[in-house]
């Protein structure tokens, strides 16, 4: 780990014990460490800073929600920590790899082997069936699908799509499509899942099913989850909530795992938006 990154780690050491999830303590490995992340967009002649030095660490098996008002930089942060975009400054260590040292091909390999993605708009390939969509990352990685068939069946059962696995996306409801996307994110047994507003396009009931599912996955498999959301109820499913405003981390809270979490998060968010 670089000196800069180590420093970032010390600067922003996350709370030692989460209220839920796997216990953490000294020697716990981090699946994600980002230090001093900066991102500046050039719009015509104007430079627009989106992130102004963000530090973030995520432990293995931890569920982190990133919240903030519109334009706070939460989506930009997700793009940078998942290797989808390059920062203007700072470092990202993801699953043991320093992203700045990886070329495009290596980044692609890292994403397909160690990271799972869940999008707001589901992003399934319309021509493929549910199970083909789930298998896609394995196939792209050149792995034998037959060796993973059992795992795929289990995942489809887990996301309650077992009986609709041969349906194409346009034959599935929004909630079902998102569950297929979750199964796709998990098929490679990633170390971390990046979720971008996973319930943004779903009704409350379907959203609850998806969030329960993410929580169960995190608890069951130990996969870390980073979820960008602006919904306090969604954030209440996380272990920890990181608040962003104007491209900076301005606060973070630990959830208690009770019904008060949603209210506290909403209040915190309202406070940040107001001031």
């Amino acid at each position, binding site marked *: 780990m670089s000196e800069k990154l180590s420093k970032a780690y010390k600067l922003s050491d996350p709370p030692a014990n989460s209220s839920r999830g796997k216990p953490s303590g000294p020697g716990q490995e981090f699946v994600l460490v980002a230090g001093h992340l900066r991102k500046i967009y050039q719009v015509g002649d104007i430079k627009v800073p989106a992130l102004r030095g963000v530090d973030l660490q995520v432990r293995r098996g931890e569920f982190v929600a990133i919240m903030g008002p519109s334009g706070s930089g939460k989506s930009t942060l997700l793009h940078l920590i998942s290797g989808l*975009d390059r920062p203007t400054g700072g470092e990202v260590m993801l699953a043991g790899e320093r992203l700045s040292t990886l070329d495009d091909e290596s980044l692609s390999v890292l994403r*397909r082997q160690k990271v799972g993605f869940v999008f707001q708009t589901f992003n399934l*390939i319309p021509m493929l069936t549910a199970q083909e969509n789930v298998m*896609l990352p394995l196939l792209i990685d050149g792995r034998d699908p037959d060796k993973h068939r059992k795992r795929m069946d289990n995942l489809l059962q887990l996301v309650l799509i077992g009986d609709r696995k041969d349906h194409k996306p346009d034959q599935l409801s929004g909630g079902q499509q998102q569950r297929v996307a979750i199964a796709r994110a998990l098929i490679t047994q990633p170390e971390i899942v990046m979720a971008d507003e996973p319930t943004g396009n779903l009704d409350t009931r379907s959203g609850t099913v998806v969030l329960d599912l993410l929580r169960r996955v995190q608890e069951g498999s130990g996969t870390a989850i980073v979820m960008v959301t602006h919904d306090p109820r969604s954030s209440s499913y996380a272990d920890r909530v990181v608040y962003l405003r104007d491209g900076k981390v301005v606060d973070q809270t630990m959830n208690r795992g009770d019904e008060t979490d949603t209210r506290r998060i909403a209040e915190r968010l309202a406070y940040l938006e107001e001031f």
Partner: protein
Amino acid sequence: MTSWRRFFTIIKLALRSMSGHLTRTALTTLGISLGVAVVLGVNITNATLMDSFNNVFDEAGGKADLTVQDQARGGDGFSSNLLQQVHDLEGVTAAAPSVQSRSLIADELSGWQASTGVMGTLSSGSTLLTLGVDPGVDSAVRELEITAGRPLEPGENRYVIVLGESFAREKEYSLGDTIPLLLPGRQAPAKFEIVGLIASSGAGLINGGSIAFLPLGVAQDLMSRNGRFDQIDLAVTDDIAQSEEALEEIKNNLAAHLGDEVRVIYPGARGKELAKRMASYRLGLDLFSTVAMFIGGFLIYNTFAINVAERTRQIGLLRTIGMTKKDVLVLMFTEAGLLSLLGSALGLLMGIGMAKGMSTTVGFAAGTTISSLSLPLRGFTRSLFIGLVVTLLSSLWPTLQAINISPLESLGVKSQPGGTGWRRMSWKFGPGLMFVGWMVFNEIPLRDSIAWTVVSIAAILFLFGAAFSVPLADQWLADLLRPGVRFVFGRVGGIGAANLKRAQNRTLLTIATLMLGIAVNIGTVSLGDSFRYDLSRWTTAATGGDLIVQSPTRMDHNLGQRLEALDGVELVTPERMIEVWTTGYPVEDEIVYIAIEPESRGEISQFLFEEPSRDAQKEVFHQLQRGEGVIISTSMAERYHLEVGDQLTLDTPRGVQDFEVLGVVLDFSGNGLMAYGSRTDQYRYFGVTDVDRFLLSVESGYNPEQVGESIQAVLGSRLNLTVDVVDQLLENVLEITDRSFVMFDTLALIVVSVSAMGVVNTMAISVMERRQELSMLRSVGMTRPQLRKMILAEAGALGLMGGILGLGLGVVLARMFIVVVRHLMDYELTNQLSTRALISSAIIALVVSQAAALIPAIRASRRPIIEGLGES
């Protein structure tokens, strides 16, 4: 293993993508298919045409190594004494003499009409080529495959005949039947017993299978060739035959030995010569196939660009979940490759179908019968290769765009809009490429061996240049057209027209595709019209008179006086055509020599002199009458760099002879390589006295048809005459001309269709990309009809711009085609800019653009507002 699995996954994705977008896949496939079909169709047609020439003459010669023929083909033949001299020459192992003439089944005389083919070649009509051969020696030089009955027997001297099987079948004759034939040497039909039938192979291919063999002695008698032969085919010893030098030496020895009466040639040389004369026609077809493929390439590019635009998010997702750039590259190229294979396979089938139609038309124009298609393996591989390369090249740029799609696209983050590379490049490349293309067309001398390559490259450079130059005109043209579009489509029309400025590259590409399609349409149709115009002008002027009298048997010169004596006949002039060789020039050609009686001919029909002064023409006729002069065609003048006053040197049975060029006229006889001489000269130098046909003018107050009927009644049946009314004959010839150029019109239509598909693509994607915006417009109060109008206005402006630029480029292209023809045919066509093509192109541009936008416009207007607003 792993990489194979990944590859199969990619193929699977490509296949699913193709099957998931059936319309787009079908459209692209059709674009590729049409391009490949045109390339293959042209290739097969050309090969078929060449083979039909080469095979016929090669096969007719069969095993012969050399051929001795009359110095003036169509004349009276040469002395049979030469046969012994041929025999006596060392190295000659066999010498087979023959006489030949065209004949007609006696009961088919009425309705028979010998006519002139489109390119000035003489069409045989439905005549039977009759060869008198010596069965004893003929088998040494010619192969006949007997399918029924027996061959002619050595020493046989009866009225027996061996007939081409296909001809016998067509005319419903069987083995043992008697067939009555009209032969030049006698007025009464000669009746032959059919003793054998021959297959359509070897010598059975001659004259498209309409061939008959009879005993030499009988033939000599019936064709007035007693003591004379038309041809001797000879075989030499193997060691000479296998050495080019030895064969050339014996050929020269033979020529020197036999004297001026005959000419020694290689068998098949005449076929090659004929094939060469069709080079311009072939090259024209080749050029079109290149252009069609080029425009097909534009369509493919357009489709792939749209494909990438439409799937940006999907490709972004694939990148997000771990697909590398290389994988995306493989994915896109796999799709391109599969489409190319599919399109090419379909194109090959379509190409064969297309070739059938084209070969018939080309054969018709060339005056040869095409009985079967030649399917050259090289043509197939070349078409497939071109299809694949054009598809891959066309999809290259969109593929490069695809691999640079950011994974962020999957998250709805839009990448930076595409650059305006085309616009920037246009200034640098457009006019420059056009200039280079134009210069190559104009300045580089075209040798046959490289003509296709040079003209194709020049055409592609020019068209590329034109496409790159579109950005120089589109902006001001759009501004110029906007008020008009607004006037037609109302206020929303202005918004529609302005939309064109948004996706500039796509707009430019569509305009360019449409422009090229329309330009090629105008150029092609105008070229056809220029040919039609000159051919009709020549046919009308050269034929002249009111009636034409001809016969499959020989007509004596004195018949003219008998005809002139008939009631209603004012003037009669005879004509006789032979084929002779030019000599002493860097290229030697077998040209058509037509003997006329200048003064009577000048009274009845016209010559299209290059300098049309009436007084001068009279003087020319006087000089021609005096002898040792010729009137030559414009093509001859260009090819041999001859002017009035120069000498044209011809090989005659009396030796090499110079003829003074007295005038230069527009004439297409013999593909334009022709000379008019006097009958006196023809007799003096070529020994020909009889007549092919008489042109007659009718006295005023008489109806040509009635005069014709009375000639038929008085002399017709007795002398085997057919009488045709010139006006009707002209109508037929012009119809034949039209039919021959239908193919060019069809090719032009294919090219326009391919370019029209580009507009369909563009409008579809343009509407698809703007669903959200269109819904927004509806939400703020735009009515459904207004929305439809706006989209139609956008398409209309696109069509207008492509149309206007296409019309301009078409005018230039038409001129360029004329230049190519001048290079290749040594003849400057009268440029006829086709108003028909201009009008049809303008209509195509507008109709296609509106039709292309109609369905997307209706769909967009019907889409619920909320649904559209929800899409990003």
